[in-house]
């Protein structure tokens, strides 16, 4: 439970908000590289953290992220001409390269003028099938993260994303909430029994215990938590890691999420799978994976979860019953939704665009949820007080999600010995495991 005030602090990420300022200190994914414009083509509008930008590649293929409004008198760069080495504002013709170099200011005769000013572009990087950007203060650019999936070639990686019409925190809550899996995804998990996908094999056991034991520790990158389910004389432990400010490493070990606010009421939900051995990024593995979890294009479009459908009547909402199939549900399907992705999104969206957390009732199954609130609020507070932001300095490349069998008395933290715990029952003194 959170007060309305804390809830606002945690959820609002627009310019000038505490949480927004905290997020702007991190490198964040903007979009999938596969959706970027070709070199020299027209700029593409994107929205992120409640701000509008233009994504562009110059004719040499260099990517750029431009703030919406021209440096000079604020006309929108969305109208700008794409002219090879830069975007030219159509109002007075000022022209900017992707790195912010001002190439031309036709209404200022002094040639040195343009050398003294810098266009409103932001640092960007291409990695792991994603375009990343840093939107914070220019003197505080952090080290670029090095996640394991960034080392995989396209053939060994699947990038997919969905748009969810609610606040980003609601989507992250679903990712650090093991106890919902057995219930909400009952029908999906039942399907895993005969399926050959790695994903299916890794999740199949969860259908048999609906009340896992949950424990969590605050770590240098955010927090990690475990869900332990009894399996005879052993326990199955699934450890997920939340990496500030909006990333999750899934216990399956080969799946990573980023939930990036588009604005306070809509977010991009990026998924990355990787596998060093299998060419999962190629057909037929790629499509069968995406179809299994409901991230294939036709299914996403049917529920209004793509860029072109999220603001249309296709989008799940109260007026269309969140596109739930009640006939299918009566026929035996637990929820009446296409797959995991739609089940999660329907629950997230159904609480309202920004869920009011002053009216909830958390239980012991929700320990990770309250850790999430604490972590995010600590980020916001640090930004407000201009203190170091939790997670910003952590070496996130070594942070994992994982799962494994452990004995009844065995500490699950042995599965993640390298995670640096800074607070919680499992805090280690001095020595490392």
């Amino acid at each position, binding site marked *: 439970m959170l007060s309305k005030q804390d809830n606002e602090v945690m959820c609002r990420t627009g310019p000038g908000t505490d949480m927004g300022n905290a997020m702007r200190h991190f490198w964040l994914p903007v979009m999938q590289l596969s959706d970027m414009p070709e070199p020299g083509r027209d700029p593409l509008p994107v929205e992120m953290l409640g701000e509008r930008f233009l994504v562009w590649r110059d004719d040499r293929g260099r990517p750029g992220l431009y703030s919406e409004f021209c440096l000079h008198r604020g006309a929108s760069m969305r109208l700008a001409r794409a002219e090879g080495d830069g975007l030219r504002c*159509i109002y007075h013709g000022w022209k900017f390269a992707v790195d912010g170099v001002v190439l031309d200011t036709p209404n200022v005769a002094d040639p040195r003028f343009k050398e003294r000013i810098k266009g409103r572009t932001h640092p960007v990087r291409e990695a792991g099938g994603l375009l990343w950007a840093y939107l914070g203060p220019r003197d505080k650019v952090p080290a670029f993260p090095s996640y394991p999936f960034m080392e995989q070639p396209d053939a060994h990686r699947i990038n997919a994303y969905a748009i969810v019409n609610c606040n980003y925190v609601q989507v992250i809550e679903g990712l650090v909430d093991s106890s919902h899996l057995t219930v909400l995804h009952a029908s999906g998990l039942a399907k895993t029994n005969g399926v050959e996908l790695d994903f299916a094999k890794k999740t199949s056991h969860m259908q048999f215990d609906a009340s896992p034991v949950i424990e969590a520790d605050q770590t240098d990158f955010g927090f990690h938590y475990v869900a332990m389910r009894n399996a005879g004389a052993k326990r199955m432990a699934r450890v997920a890691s939340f990496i500030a400010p909006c990333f999750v490493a899934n216990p399956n070990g080969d799946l990573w999420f980023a939930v990036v606010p588009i604005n306070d009421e809509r977010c991009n939900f990026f998924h990355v799978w990787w596998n060093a051995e299998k060419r999962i990024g190629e057909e037929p593995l790629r499509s069968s994976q995406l179809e299994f979890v409901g991230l294939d294009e036709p299914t996403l479009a049917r529920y209004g979860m793509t860029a072109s459908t999220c603001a249309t009547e296709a989008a799940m909402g109260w007026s269309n019953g969140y596109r739930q199939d009640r006939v299918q549900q009566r026929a035996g399907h637990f929820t009446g939704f296409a797959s995991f992705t739609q089940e999660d999104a329907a629950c997230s969206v159904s609480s309202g665009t920004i869920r009011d957390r002053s009216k909830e009732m958390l239980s012991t199954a929700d320990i990770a949820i309250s850790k999430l609130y604490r972590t995010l609020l600590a980020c916001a507070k640090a930004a407000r007080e201009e203190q170091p932001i939790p997670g910003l300095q952590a070496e996130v490349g070594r942070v994992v999600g994982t799962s494994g069998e452990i004995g009844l008395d065995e500490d699950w933290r042995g599965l993640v010995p390298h995670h640096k715990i800074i607070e919680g029952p499992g805090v280690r003194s001095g020595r490392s495991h």
Partner: protein
Amino acid sequence: MLNRQDNDLLCRVGPGTPMGHMMRRYWHPVCTSAQLPHADAAPLRVRLLGEDYVAFRDSNGKVGLLEELCMHRGASLALGRVEEGGIRCLYHGWKFDVAGTVLETPNNSDPKYRSRMKAPAFPVREEGGIVWAYVGPKELQPEFSRYAFMDADPAHRVVLRVNVECNYLQLVEGGEDSSHVGVLHTNMARPGWKDDDFQPNQDVVNPAALSTNDLEPVLKIEDTAFGFQYVALRKTNKQGVKNARVVPFIVPYGRVIPATAFLFTVLEVPQDDTHTSTYIIVHGDSPVTEEKIIGLLGLGDAKYYDRKTCTFTATWADSFGQSRARMKENWTGLQGVEVEDASIALSQGPLYDRSKEHLVPADQAVMRVRRVLLDSVKRVIESKPPVGVGIDLRGVSAVDAELADGGAWQSLVPSHREAISA
């Protein structure tokens, strides 16, 4: 650049705001005459400076302006019946004439009752194809300011209204900004731009037709009784000769832009903080048609302009109709002077935040607009009359002409200086 406080001071025009007080001291256009086409025509809702009114033309052809909501129980008079010398509220039948006299109150038969009351009506004038009203303090009502276009032959004049969904100042600033003409209006200002082969546009009606290719005009500015006048001086290919475009700024939101054979008087009338009615009045010494002007402004296309409601309709939903495919041949991918100006102003957002901009010498006239408006607000706060209120504006004009080096640009429109001494 402005801090947010000054930006708000300049942009917010509702009741009780400093700019709202200043603006209410002037006469304002409230609709075109054509919007009330005949006696007893349908009444029209009018929004001006953040308040709502109803305009109607009575049986004798006289126009009245009342507060929108009926004085009895607040139903909108825009739903009312216009008949027999007045407007009648649908709800209980109260009827008012253009002066605010209460003619009938059917649910109270005592004639003394209605004679004691007066409906909130405002002074109205109909001049130059436009209905004007004064909504400021009664005791401070100024003389009605006449413009040159009011004396033009109606066959030589076109009046258009274009409602645009953004703050008035963005539109005003685009009008006192010579350096954008050669860029944003490249298609019309610099035909041949694609092959770097400048050919002057020969259309004598087009105000964006520049006679030179110089994109770095030098600006000079002089305050006048009505606001200020400025000149944009552009290099020509003649030795010792510059091209001079003189444009006035008429407090609080007016300008005149020169085409070769016509003048474009443009008034950016605030409906409220994020809606503006742009009145464009074209006049000259020869006949001109509405179709010609609408085509020139790019408003002939239904995707841009709803002629029935006088509304600019393009939005981000269709990227202002910008055609990226055509941008090799067409500089902006847009079509027409007003389409380009309105799209740019809308692209700055509903109320542009000037705390983040980077002004340059070519923006001097923009800076002067802000200063003159702030000065005028300050004068009203100090109980002085605002700049130029009630003066005769018939001498305010604009010109695009050659000027020999060393010549006084002010001599190109001598009447502007006469207005100073007036």
